């Protein structure tokens, strides 16, 4: 049974993608059913991991080092669940834009297989322990993502997709080179085995450095962020939601596993300082650029650059020599909280922005004026997501920032605390303009807007509520993330 629980989240979306190509007429229904089915499986897997601890299977009965091991610990299973939840909400939201256009149009035909392939790539990235398998998962993910950016075929989105492609190709070849070096030195690609045999010598250091560089490019860490805003804002809204909420998290989780599970000893003080500083610069620079944008989708996309920056604070706060300290567990768990909260809130925000775009006809900010009267549910969802992104209580974003702040002050590295507070304030600044316009008293006559059904407005609200709920009921996920955490013997700071 465990075998199926681990294999199906990878196999089902792949199979559904193939069927969606062959039988385009049923593709939309099939994709939505797959989303719900995988969500059910993810819930089951989380229950299984919570009950019996981490589970793993060797695919086809081939054990590592030859075979590929799928492994679900607290980290992998919870990312799987959040991904499934977001896909289950995003796929129905894409129905109006793609399925209703008909399977004979390019976008209507291509969207569903691409979304399903992206889903399969995400799930593989969270469950696999094999570096080459992870490379294939990342490629599947990235190629589907690039194709989704270009799906409308407009000149500016093609430019954005090509820029994304150029960055992604460089990232993938660097990651592959790192994996090849690791195999050449230690004759295994399995993370668990590498952790056992890899000493902190230079072949492994070179391999991990190359993989980290490749993953940082794919996670859009400053200064490799230039591809992200045009790509994420140019894609159709449901695709933007998947790209911004999920795709960069896959490469980040692999990076987290590399540095905390495979080679924790290689994390020198200089390295954690560099990664943390790049993250901090991303927080400030992404937020400042977001403040200057005049289009809603660009604001949300630049906000992703800033929000991804927070994730890299895990390296100075929980990595290197600090890994054995009591505050490390809090910081390590906090970045996962932040990733979940950002994923849910950002998906909600892009879905809401897509609905605004459809109602108003463009996404320039002045079009939002007074929209709360015409579309109260979508505007409420946008407001709730904004609370999670700013890190205000009681959202999941607040729990993450609270844990990170506690770790920053407990470890005496108050400078990261300043970054956290400044990032929250800047987020409030760039989200204030759209919110202020949305909830202003005067504005467009609701009769001039294209109507958006309440059912569709409920989807972003569902995701935004999940982001808030993550903060209200944070102790369950906190404990769950500790299952299989590297170095979990050290007592953490409880929330």
């Amino acid at each position, binding site marked *: 049974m465990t075998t199926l629980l681990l294999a199906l989240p990878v196999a089902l979306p792949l199979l559904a993608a193939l069927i969606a190509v062959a039988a385009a007429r049923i593709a939309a229904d099939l994709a939505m059913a797959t989303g719900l089915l995988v969500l059910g499986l993810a819930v089951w897997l989380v229950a299984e991991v919570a009950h019996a601890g981490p589970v793993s299977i060797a695919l086809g009965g081939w054990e590592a080092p030859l075979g590929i091991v799928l492994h679900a610990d607290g980290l992998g299973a919870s990312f799987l669940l959040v991904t499934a939840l977001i896909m289950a909400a995003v796929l129905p939201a894409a129905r109006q834009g793609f399925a209703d256009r008909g399977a004979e149009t390019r976008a209507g035909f291509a969207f569903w297989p691409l979304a399903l392939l992206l889903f399969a790539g995400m799930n593989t990235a969270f469950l696999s322990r094999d570096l080459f398998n992870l490379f294939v998962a990342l*490629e599947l993910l990235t190629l589907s993502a690039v*194709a989704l950016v*270009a799906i409308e075929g407009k*000149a500016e989105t*093609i430019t954005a997709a090509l820029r994304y492609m*150029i960055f992604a190709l460089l990232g993938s070849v660097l990651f592959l080179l790192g994996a090849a070096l690791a195999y050449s030195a230690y004759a295994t690609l399995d993370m668990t085995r590498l952790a056992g045999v890899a000493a902190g010598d230079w072949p492994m250091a070179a391999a991990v450095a190359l993989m980290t560089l490749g993953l940082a490019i794919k996670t859009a860490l400053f200064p490799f962020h230039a591809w992200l805003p045009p790509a994420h804002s140019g894609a159709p809204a449901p695709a933007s939601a998947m790209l911004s909420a999920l795709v960069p998290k896959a490469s980040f989780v692999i990076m987290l596993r590399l540095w905390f599970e495979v080679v924790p000893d290689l994390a020198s003080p200089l390295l954690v300082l560099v990664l943390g500083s790049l993250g901090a610069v991303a927080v400030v620079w992404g937020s400042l650029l977001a403040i200057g944008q005049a289009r809603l989708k660009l604001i949300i996309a630049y906000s992703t650059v800033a929000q991804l920056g927070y994730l890299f604070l895990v390296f100075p706060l929980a990595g290197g020599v600090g890994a054995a300290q009591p505050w490390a567990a809090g910081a390590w768990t906090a970045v996962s909280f932040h990733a979940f909260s950002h994923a849910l809130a950002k998906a909600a925000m892009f879905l809401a922005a897509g609905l605004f775009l459809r109602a108003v006809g463009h996404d320039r900010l002045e079009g939002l004026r007074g929209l709360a009267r015409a579309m109260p549910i979508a505007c409420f969802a946008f407001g709730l997501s904004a609370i999670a992104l700013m890190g205000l209580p009681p959202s999941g974003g607040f729990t993450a920032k609270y844990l990170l702040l506690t770790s920053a002050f407990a470890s005496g590295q108050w400078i990261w605390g300043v970054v956290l507070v400044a990032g929250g304030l800047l987020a409030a600044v760039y989200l204030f303009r759209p919110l202020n316009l949305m909830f202003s008293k005067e504005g467009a006559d609701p009769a001039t807007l294209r109507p958006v059904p309440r059912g569709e407005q409920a989807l972003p609200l569902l995701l935004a509520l999940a982001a808030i709920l993550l903060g209200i009921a944070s102790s369950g996920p906190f404990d769950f993330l500790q299952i299989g955490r590297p170095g979990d013997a050290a007592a953490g700071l409880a929330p």
Partner: protein
Amino acid sequence: MSGFVTFFGLAGAGLIGLGLYGFLAHAHLLRRLLSFNVMGSGVFLMFGAAAARSPALGADAVPQALIITGIVVKLAGTALAVALLVQLARSLGRAALPEDEEGPRA
């Protein structure tokens, strides 16, 4: 035997360096794609050489299997990139990213 292996490994490393230079130095996207392919071939050659580095054991089959998979992945990526590039050239009549066209050209 082992001299050849070292030669292949070094040749692979050289191709990676050449490809990386071409990838970063050129503005024309087709040249960048070709450079990426040169770089990828370098990685595969180096990986293949690593598979044969201990002649007593014979060739290690795992890198060979991975190289074949890697070539398929690289082919898919290149195909998508070329398709996008053709679209770009058709719609805007250019083959470089706008930010690269501003600067000096080779």
